[in-house]
């Protein structure tokens, strides 16, 4: 197996994190709105940690659930269940349109964490991580994946070298990498829109990511079932 092939889970995790980070409905736009409301850049900055914590908890809960299930349920069954959940979830988002019913701009750390948690959960952010970690190359290739260049480009901790890496650690790392990408992209977009582009950009740049996301969920579900 080449290093490129072995790296795909990391790339997928980063890409998903970046996707969530760029989605206006999952964080950066709220940070920008708070900055505009309070008319200070600091408000944008202050919004970012709770948004990240909320996202992390949402994704972490799903991954922890899978860790627990994997110990008790055969992998093949877990894959089928994951696929069905993804397809049903994606279809429901496609068929029955709805949007968050949260009301409130006066939010502190706790509120913003809760909001981010709800948005990520409602979005199925953590669900998309499951097929990736279930399809993770087996132990032999973990060494490959982690020594194949990722630690250089992503500055991963040195301790992940080698096949001795335990699964929980790996999964923790997976959640971390995903959340890091989310944080980086969200923060950059928030500051660019707040300081440079202005919210007028929403009118043209806000693509219907929910529609795309629903299709991605269904496609991933189908792939998980058959690959």
């Amino acid at each position, binding site marked *: 197996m080449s290093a490129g092939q072995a790296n795909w889970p990391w790339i997928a995790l980063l890409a998903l994190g970046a996707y969530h980070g760029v989605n*206006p409905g999952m964080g950066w*736009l709220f940070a920008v709105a708070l900055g505009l*409301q309070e008319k200070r850049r600091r408000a944008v900055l202050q919004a970012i940690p709770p948004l990240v914590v909320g996202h992390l908890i949402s994704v972490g809960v799903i991954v922890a659930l899978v860790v627990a299930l994997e110990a008790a349920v055969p992998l093949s069954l877990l894959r089928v269940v994951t696929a069905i959940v993804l397809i049903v979830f994606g279809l429901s988002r496609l068929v029955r349109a709805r949007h968050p019913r949260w009301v409130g701009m006066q939010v502190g750390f706790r509120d913003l964490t809760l909001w981010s948690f709800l948005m990520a959960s409602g979005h199925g952010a953590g669900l998309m991580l499951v097929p990736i970690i279930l399809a993770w190359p087996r132990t032999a290739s973990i060494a490959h994946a982690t020594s194949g260049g990722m630690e250089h480009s992503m500055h991963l901790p040195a301790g992940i070298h080698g096949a001795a890496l335990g699964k929980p650690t790996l999964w923790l790392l997976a959640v971390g990498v995903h959340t890091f990408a989310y944080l980086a992209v969200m923060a950059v977009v928030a500051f660019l829109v707040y300081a440079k582009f202005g919210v007028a950009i929403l009118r043209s740049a806000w693509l219907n990511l929910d529609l795309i996301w629903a299709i991605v969920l269904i496609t991933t579900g189908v792939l998980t079932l058959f690959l």
Partner: protein
Amino acid sequence: MLLRPDPTFYPSARLAMQAPPETLAYVATLNANGNGRPDALAVVDVDPKSPTYSSLVGRVEMPKAGDELHHFGWNACSSALCPYAPHPHLERRYLIVPGLRSSRIHVIDTKPNPRKPQIVKVIEPEEVAARAGYSRPHTIHCGPDGIYVSALGSPEGDGPGGIFILDHYTFDVLGRWEVDRGPQFLSYDFWWHLGHDTMLTSEWGTPNMVEDGIKPELLFEGKYGRHVHVWDLRRRRQLQALDAGAEQQMVLELRPAHDPSKPYGFVGVVVSLKDLSASVWLWHRENGKWGLKKVIEIPAEPAEVDALPPLLKGFKAVPPLITDINLSLDDRWLYVSCWATGELRQYDVSDPFNPKLTGSVRLGGIASRAAHPRNPQRQLNGGPQMVEVSRDGRRIYFTNSLYRAWDEQFYPEGIRSWMAKAIASPEGGLTIDPGFFLEFDDVRAHQVHLEGGDSSSDSYCYS
């Protein structure tokens, strides 16, 4: 479902002012001629370049007679871009048009052909009553999480009135909004400061207090509304009742600053029992508490007894009766309708505590009967009432009917309805557009909303 946001949604009021000029206006029209025909939503051409400018180009009749169409609003607007509950790919497409008397709510699709809107759903009064406990739906605002509707009272015609919510997608009645209404009982208009999680509601009267006409015995005892209620929008709790005073009667249209960071707004009070003056009040926040302060007072105008309807003969004066106000999107110009004296005023409210009168036009009026420049010989009745301001703030549209049972008490010969337009100068000043005047043969025009949004249709989450 759209792939990009609805082009009529703007993140901020400032950006919305750059919107293209409207070409169509939707006008609620009331059938008051007793022929048993239903009310209708009319479509008026407001494009000066069009050959049918200033005329009726479409109308859709309601399924049943007797609705009393009054106020209405869009299913979705710029609040769809709010960061906490975004739905930017929902279209501004449906007008939610309630019957104030029938309590039927019509959902009217303006999309396939904006000049030929079609009714696609009717919410029956029974559904509103069963799911929310309210009736007599009045104001519609497209909220961040659903469509908010105010209602004057209970199905029996008493209080309390309040607010209920419709689902953005299905238009199902989701239920009563309030969790804790405190002392609030009377209801009328509502709006909010989205940046401050604050809702304001105003007070007119219960259905039983208004549907058979204004009741002088209730009025002179000061039984109509005199409060503005401040609410926690998020927790749905009444926080504070702002009292305009015992002599102030009927606190109607609420116009909060469009900039979500500014915690103030204006509300019109119809009449003072002390001297028949009308007034505009400013609500504002100081040290976490909200206050209410009178910032505009318009005195009654003396008149010959012969010119007055029975209700006013004893006073030998015409009260201005402020029945509607509207605030331009830059929060700079406030328009004030004096329905009985027939005057539309423009104030510069750059300093909201000290409005400056900058313009005035007159049409109709109980005593003055001022004519339109297009037909200077013809005396008009009714007066500037529902007023709507275009998004760029340059064009002001207004109609002259108030409410069926009340029209006759002030204009006993019956309102001959019209719609007019005034032009606002960028630095202040108001003139009537001689090229725009529309007379409605046998129906009465009420609220006007403009294609793509206007100064009372949208709320914004970005300062």
